[in-house]
């Protein structure tokens, strides 16, 4: 909502307070003023001139040579290219020395050999937006009314020196979508009264109801509809002051009738519509829901197909307007219109919103109906508009109105105590202070002891409960005056849940291991949604995606991380390691929310260690990545519960991929991205993992229990085992651990040999076995006994031979 500072003074006294101060006060008490603009800022030297001569430029077809009286001693010669410039016009002249928007300075010039002492201006050249310029002057200079005074400041006359406050209104404050509404707000802030416009009724003896009848078939959508008739109007331009006020509010002037309806819309907040009586098509107005597939050509000359969701004004036969949204082209007020039906009505917000949305038509009118207009102003707004039409377009207002009025308008009555207000705000307001606030708002105030009974005027439809009154009290008392305290009450333990704690541990571990945390999008393409998915389940599609790229909920994080790798690789960052913790989504029943699981995923590529000046480097490989997740499992206390199993997974390297099992259940995978996929993505060799964080965090973990630090020495025996190429080191380790019994405390692999000195199809793995007993020093026999068992077991179960 744009509010002219000058115009506002018609309704509330602003003496002693300038526009900037006013803006600050309005902002502080509840409506954000997003800006105060004075269009003439920085401009100067534009006056009203009178074109006393115009002739064709001798050397240019499209230029005019004008002699213009600018109120100076002598007329000046100005060369003007506007097609509509003519003798007798009053125009805006930027004189020599003038400054126009964009710091454009006017100098004396010679155009095709003729001197030009200034410029005759269009409204656009003076800083008006094109969309606000009346179509009459859209492509030429602006012409003032004939009575404009030569030599006067044109900027002033065009309202450009006015200051305009731009209000950013929250949806509840539709009451401030009118000048009168803003006046009430300002009145409450300043403690000043609101002056309503005076309506001087001058009606003919003839009755409006003899000319037209009104029937409402959809009373819930339209509880009150009034139609006034104005006869014998003369359509023409509206007065300049009205045009400039409309433009200051962001509305383009058309003609006096349309301008007046818009003026009232701005003044009262009540949208009006004028129909051409003679082109209306009948003598009855019927308001009803549209029929399915019914059609109307609206003012913008677009044919629109209606549905029963839309409310229409009809002439009993066909729609002539979409209620509250836009009128029809057939009954539009045109230059030759003489008789007018003036509609002032209350249309329900929901039905207007539906139509405005379905047809993509959002107008000043629809915006107001959608948010709710003040039903108490419907009749008065119609009266005032009719009077202005008679005043500025000639014509006679017929008596009364044809109308249907079934409006039951009950103002809200709310009781509240001062104590309630103070408790909710933490303030210490007195009864008198609170009373003064409600009175300044011009609410009905009754006070019984410390209890107020407040009657809320219908213009403030947003106030229905106690809390709303508390807010009114708070904002007019001033938030700056509210004290600063902290809640006192029963103490509550502040802490993370076990799960949240583990998630943080996981983050710390992965960061400590050298991975950066990434955050990517949950929405992705259909193809990527299920790529690398841990569980082959159906993905979920949005009903109305913005793009295919973001149309599905992800089942896995890895594809997004690979995008990040691709992005970085493309920017010469070849080495990177990332992880992400985030939700993936699995479809359930249509009616049910999907299953959301938190996963942790990682992507690692390029050099892992590099200490180049010492000539050391190591690239990421499977075991580097595996080491990272092992560290994660260790932090979470799960190392004993985790196993790896060679696996074939789509888009993964067939020989370098493992499933990760937690107590036998697959909870993730790790491995190299399939080289073909790497090539398609244009990324280097990349290792990834994705694990169910949920499964990891929810697994039971043994509590930490101290174990005695050994006092006796341990003994280590190394063995090199020759096994089949396909035998898994992990399996042998399991066999060793099982066979080694209590004395075997640690098994580690220290060598792997698969070279040419081995028999075909065999490999050698060397294990180091550490034996000890916390109670005593082990004898050679003890160890040999245990060790023999190990050797037997590996031979028997894995066909392993000791390497000679």
């Amino acid at each position, binding site marked *: 909502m744009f509010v002219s500072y000058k115009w506002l003074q018609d309704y509330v006294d602003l003496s002693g307070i300038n526009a900037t101060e006013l803006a600050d006060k309005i*902002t502080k008490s*509840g409506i*954000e003023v997003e800006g105060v603009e004075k269009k003439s800022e920085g401009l100067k030297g534009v006056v009203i001139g009178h074109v006393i001569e115009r002739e064709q430029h001798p050397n240019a077809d499209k230029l005019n040579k004008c002699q213009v009286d600018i109120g100076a001693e002598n007329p000046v010669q100005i060369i003007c290219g506007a097609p509509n410039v003519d003798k007798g016009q009053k125009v805006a002249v930027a004189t020599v020395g003038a400054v126009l928007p964009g710091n454009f300075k006017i100098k004396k010039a010679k155009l095709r050999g003729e001197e030009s002492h200034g410029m005759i201006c269009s409204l656009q050249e003076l800083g008006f937006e094109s969309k606000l310029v009346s179509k009459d002057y859209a492509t030429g200079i602006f012409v003032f009314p004939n009575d404009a005074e030569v030599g006067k400041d044109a900027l002033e006359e065009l309202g450009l020196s006015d200051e305009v406050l731009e209000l950013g209104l*929250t*949806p509840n404050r539709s009451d401030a979508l009118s000048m009168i509404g803003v006046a009430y707000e300002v009145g409450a802030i300043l403690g000043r009264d609101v002056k309503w416009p005076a309506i001087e009724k001058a009606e003919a003896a003839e009755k409006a109801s003899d000319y037209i009848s009104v029937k409402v078939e959809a009373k819930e959508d339209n509880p009150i509809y009034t139609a006034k008739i104005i006869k014998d109007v003369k359509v023409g331009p509206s007065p300049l002051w009205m045009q400039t006020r409309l433009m200051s509010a962001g509305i383009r002037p058309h003609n006096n009738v349309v301008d007046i309806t818009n003026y009232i819309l701005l003044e009262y907040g009540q949208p009006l519509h004028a129909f051409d009586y003679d082109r209306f098509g009948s003598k009855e107005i019927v308001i009803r829901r549209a029929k399915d597939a019914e059609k109307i050509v609206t003012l913008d000359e677009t044919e629109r197909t209606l549905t029963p969701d839309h409310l229409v004004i009809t002439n009993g036969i066909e729609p002539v307007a979409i209620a509250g949204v836009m009128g029809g082209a057939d009954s539009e007020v045109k230059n030759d219109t003489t008789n007018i039906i003036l509609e002032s009505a209350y249309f329900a917000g*929901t039905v207007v919103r539906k139509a405005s949305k379905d047809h993509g038509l959002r107008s000043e009118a629809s915006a107001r109906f*959608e948010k709710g207009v003040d039903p108490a102003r419907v009749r008065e707004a119609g009266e005032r508009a009719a009077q202005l039409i008679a005043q500025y377009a000639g014509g006679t207002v017929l008596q009364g109105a044809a109308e249907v009025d079934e409006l039951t308008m009950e103002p809200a009555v709310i009781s509240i105590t001062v104590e309630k207000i103070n*408790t*909710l*705000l*933490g303030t210490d307001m007195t009864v008198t202070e609170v009373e003064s606030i409600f009175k300044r708002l011009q609410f009905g105030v009754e006070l019984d002891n410390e209890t107020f009974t407040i009657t809320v005027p219908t213009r403030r439809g947003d106030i229905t*409960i106690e*809390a709303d009154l508390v*807010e009114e009290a708070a*904002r007019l008392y001033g*938030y*700056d005056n*509210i*004290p*600063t*305290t*902290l*809640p006192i*009450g*029963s103490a*509550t*333990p*502040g*802490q*993370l*849940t076990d799960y*949240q704690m583990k998630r943080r541990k996981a*983050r710390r571990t*992965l*960061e400590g*291991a*050298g991975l*950066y*945390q*990434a*955050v*990517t999008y*949950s*929405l992705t393409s259909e193809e990527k949604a299920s790529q690398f998915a841990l569980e082959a389940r159906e993905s*979920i*599609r*949005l009903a*109305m995606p*913005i793009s295919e790229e973001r149309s599905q909920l992800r089942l896995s994080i890895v594809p997004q991380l690979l995008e*990040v790798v691709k992005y*970085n690789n493309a*920017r010469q960052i070849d080495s990177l390691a990332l992880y992400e913790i*985030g939700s993936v989504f699995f479809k359930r029943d*249509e009616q049910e*929310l999907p299953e*959301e699981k938190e996963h942790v995923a990682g992507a690692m590529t390029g050099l*892992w*260690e*590099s*200490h180049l000046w010492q000539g050391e480097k190591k690239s990421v490989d499977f075991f580097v990545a595996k080491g990272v997740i092992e560290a994660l499992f260790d932090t979470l206390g799960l190392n004993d519960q985790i196993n790896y199993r060679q696996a074939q997974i789509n888009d993964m390297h067939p020989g370098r991929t493992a499933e990760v099992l937690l107590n036998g259940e697959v909870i993730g995978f790790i491995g190299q991205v399939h080289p073909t996929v790497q090539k398609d993505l244009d990324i280097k060799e990349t290792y990834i993992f994705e694990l169910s964080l949920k499964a990891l965090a929810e697994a039971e973990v043994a509590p930490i229990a101290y174990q005695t630090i050994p006092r006796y020495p341990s003994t280590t025996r190394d063995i090199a085992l020759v096994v089949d190429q396909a035998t898994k080191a992990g399996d042998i380790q399991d066999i060793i651990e099982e066979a080694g019994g209590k004395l075997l405390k640690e098994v580690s692999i220290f060598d792997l040999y698969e070279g040419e000195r081995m028999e075909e199809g065999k490999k050698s793995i060397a294990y180091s076995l550490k034996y000890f007993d916390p109670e005593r020093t082990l004898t050679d026999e003890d160890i040999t006994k245990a060790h023999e068992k190990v050797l037997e077991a590996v031979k028997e179960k894995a066909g392993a031979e000791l390497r000679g």
Partner: protein
Amino acid sequence: MMQERLLELQEEALQKVTAASELKELNEVRVAYLGKKGPITEVLRGMGKLSAEERPKIGALANDVREAIASKIEEKQKALETAAVNAKLATETIDVTLPGRPVNKGNLHPLTRVVEEIEDLFIGMGYTVAEGPEVESDYYNFEALNLPKSHPARDMQDSFYITDEILMRTHTSPVQARTMKKHKGQGPVKIICPGKVYRRDNDDATHSHQFQQIEGLVIDENISMSDLKGTLDVFAKKVFGQDREIRLRPSFFPFTEPSVEVDISCKICGGKGCSVCKQTGWIEVLGAGIVHPNVLEMAGFDSKKYSGFAFGMGVERIAMLKYGVDDIRHFYTNDVRFLKQFNHHEA
């Protein structure tokens, strides 16, 4: 005679010790003078010829001479050894200004960093961290928050719906509704709710279809607007600096009444007005208010007994203000050169 001979030997030996420049040479001196075949031993062998009176004197002198030589040798040996070590160490000198072996080190994403900082602040004030699903029912996302189906703020165009009743949550407020319901009308409730949210926006420098919010909710008896103001003051000073001030401006949200917009004083200009704060001296950071009685009642709380406050903010906005990030898309591009910048602890 023997006495002179011993002193002579001592003089001779000490000279050789002093002259020795290598451990080997020194050892030769030791063997030559102190060895079993050395001259001192030889002198002592002739002691039999001496009188009983002279014998102990010469014996003592001989011992003194031996000790003097031995101690000089030891002294010299240490000196030579030290010199040898020093000489060896001198050859081992390295350039200490060369870089150390890098330790791999990642760090949190800036958004998580902000979230954890805020979580920890509120945990310290007795809050717990509540979380909820990112795909929500229309009921929890809107209806339970006083946004009935006909509400103008609920435009299909603005939200990612999956079915008519299920959508990507548009804010983290449904977590508040869910938590309140779990409390079954029993206060106190003190939670902070971080999480991802989704809006049907095209991505540009200031909009992101996915972003993160963090909201707080306190419900107890006698919770007031002044408590909200105090709590947010603590927040602003912790997150943006001790010299920041806050300002509350009336606003509107369907789930709070009264509702406020909260500004912090501009860090750049200190409140005088600059381009960052659009000449106002204040920067809008979050929305808040007193929980709407409808919201309390819908969640089973007696709005006569309990009151509460809620606040919510965009994590990206906080991070952008805190670190001066100028384009929201940076948070989701994950350029490592961007991520790496958020690596150290700030005061």
